């Protein structure tokens, strides 16, 4: 395959596995053989339902979890092979925004202390005066003001706290930010504020985002490309509009059709694919394709063989036996786009 010269891959995730040990020698396969890459300057969205492994992937990329197998390559270097000193430098380039703005800020520190902490750890400034000036600047960048610096987290609303979390992530001027469900704890009108802020910051600073969330409408809104996860596996990956216009994997189709659209006329006409049953346990996942127990078009082969991760169309990856070269062509009804 040709390397796209225009788009530089800043992050490559190669066959990464993360298993957690359980009782009686069993393993919870939170992430099982996931491969994707993120281009510099883009927003890559990772979606899936609870327990699909999307947060584990984020944490494994950050090096917060040790991988079980595979490689995480950030700017040409294996993140999990870094020495302590190299790791220190690595964290200047990659930062994280967490889900719960109530739990991710230390309640005993003032906003200034929270935002200064990473700068102190990395000794960015020769003196306090310069550091404080930078804190003020960051607060303004995220839509707060410098008077907020001496207050404590409990004095802020959820949306404002998330802005503080963003300011902290920006403190080291990173290139890459992993945002793990950054808006799901916020009210709808506030979600849009934070998403717009992230977009503005991206354009201004040329940031690359890995945006992890369960809300596909919001992920589609913010992302350039999207990976869909199910039970530890990446099942489909493509550009966000293509994912909606031409989904390939049966799970993606079901997921898209399950999301209600705030428009009564469209809702009335939409056909839903209602998935039967519930998510199997990641401790004892189904053989072959993990989705086959709920798949409306499962075939014999799905139980026997794990589908390979393949580029079914240009820049459109899928793991499903339906799209094997000699696989059967089955049409799945539902998720019809409704023309109004």
């Amino acid at each position, binding site marked *: 395959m040709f390397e796209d010269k225009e788009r530089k891959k800043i992050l490559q995730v190669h066959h990464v596995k993360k298993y957690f040990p359980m009782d009686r020698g069993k393993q919870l396969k939170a992430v099982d053989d996931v491969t994707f890459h993120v281009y510099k300057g883009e927003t890559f969205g990772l979606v899936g339902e609870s327990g699909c492994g999307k947060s584990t992937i984020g944490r494994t990329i950050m090096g917060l979890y040790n991988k079980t197998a595979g490689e995480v390559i950030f700017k040409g270097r294996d993140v999990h092979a870094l020495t302590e000193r190299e790791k220190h430098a690595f964290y200047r380039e990659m930062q994280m925004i967490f889900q719960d703005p109530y739990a991710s800020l230390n309640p005993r520190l003032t906003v200034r202390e929270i935002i200064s902490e990473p700068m102190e750890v990395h000794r960015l400034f020769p003196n306090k005066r310069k550091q404080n000036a930078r804190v003020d600047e960051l607060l303004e960048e995220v839509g707060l003001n410098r008077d907020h610096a001496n207050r404590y987290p409990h004095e802020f609303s959820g949306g404002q706290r998330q802005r503080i979390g963003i300011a902290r992530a920006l403190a080291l001027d990173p290139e890459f930010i992993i945002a793990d469900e950054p808006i799901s704890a916020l009210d709808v009108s506030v979600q*849009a504020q934070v998403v717009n802020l992230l977009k503005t910051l991206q354009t201004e600073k040329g940031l690359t985002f890995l945006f992890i969330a369960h809300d596909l409408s*919001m992920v589609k809104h913010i992302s350039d490309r999207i990976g869909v996860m199910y039970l530890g596996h990446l099942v489909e990956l493509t550009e966000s509009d293509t994912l909606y216009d031409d989904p390939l994997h049966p799970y993606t189709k079901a997921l898209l059709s399950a999301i*209600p659209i*705030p428009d009564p006329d469209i809702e009335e006409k939409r056909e*839903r694919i209602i998935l039967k049953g519930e998510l199997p346990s990641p401790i004892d996942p189904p053989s072959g394709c993990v989705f086959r127990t709920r798949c409306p078009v499962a075939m014999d082969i799905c139980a026997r063989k794990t589908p390979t991760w393949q580029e079914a169309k240009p820049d459109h990856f899928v793991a499903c036996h339906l799209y094997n070269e000699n696989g059967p062509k089955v049409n799945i009804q539902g998720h019809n786009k409704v023309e109004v």
Partner: protein
Amino acid sequence: MNKDEPILKVNNLHVTFSTYGGTVQAVRGVDFHLNKGETLAIVGESGCGKSVTSNAIMRLIPDPPGKITAGNIYFKGVDLTKLSEKKMRAIRGVDISMIFQDPMTALNPTLTIGTQLTEGLRQHQKVSKEKAIEKAIDIMEVVGIPNPKERLKQYPHQFSGGMRQRIVIAMALICEPELLIADEPTTALDVTIQAQILELFETIQKATGVSIILITHDLGVVAKIADRIAVMYAGKIIETGNNRDIFYQPQHPYTKGLLNSVPRLDLAGEKLEPIEGTPPDLFSPPKGCPFAARCPYVMEVCNKVFPVQTEYTDSHHVNCWLQDERAKSLLATIANE
């Protein structure tokens, strides 16, 4: 009772909570009605008073610190606010049932599903144990729980989140209530499970004709299942109308703002327009329109007096000074200039 009369009528409801920091005016004069067999969605963001309103209908406001300080709640002509706790207990779970948000905490972990399902039936309708179990099995089939006979003997932890929510729904339905209040029934669930549960609501309503109040912040869910919508903000209902009135002809700037701040899966490249600012503090709510501080069209009057209700159409009511004739004529003049 007249047949066309609404099954539920709430007039001028006020609920307050006394706290260490002062009195929170959680619900500040709410009026709405619910017709027989329809689904009314009460929409709003956290802290707007939507859950307090539904708890007040069930008389589940803990007193102290909470108190219904004014207003009436007429259920089939009877004012629930005037009933004794004993009489209220005979209505709760029998005529009016409630489904709570979190299926993980709504069930008792130490009792079997069978015991919890039949408890209400045995309490209220004095049926025999055998009869109650029979009915529990029937209702479990209705809500789509496979192998109901065996599963009756199991405990909540042996069920998944979606299945637990089905049990909670079965519990709410077993005494065949006329009114079902569902407080964020799918918020804790994944979307594919949410789709299953929403479909279940529609099936049940078709089969039993139960009237539903749905409390939610998810506009997509509302578009799918609501007949009518009431939008709440800072303890007040600021706009009500039929489903399509609210989605296609929103009149209140807050309703418009809410609709513009959610991304739509079916649209590409749309711009999100968030509502700047945050809702007011309900310890000392503003005297005028509570949305005034965030409203892009704010006028002087908005800060002084809460807007009177205007009828945009017969079915569509708004509390906003922009709907006032004087504001309208002024806007028309500006537009002409």
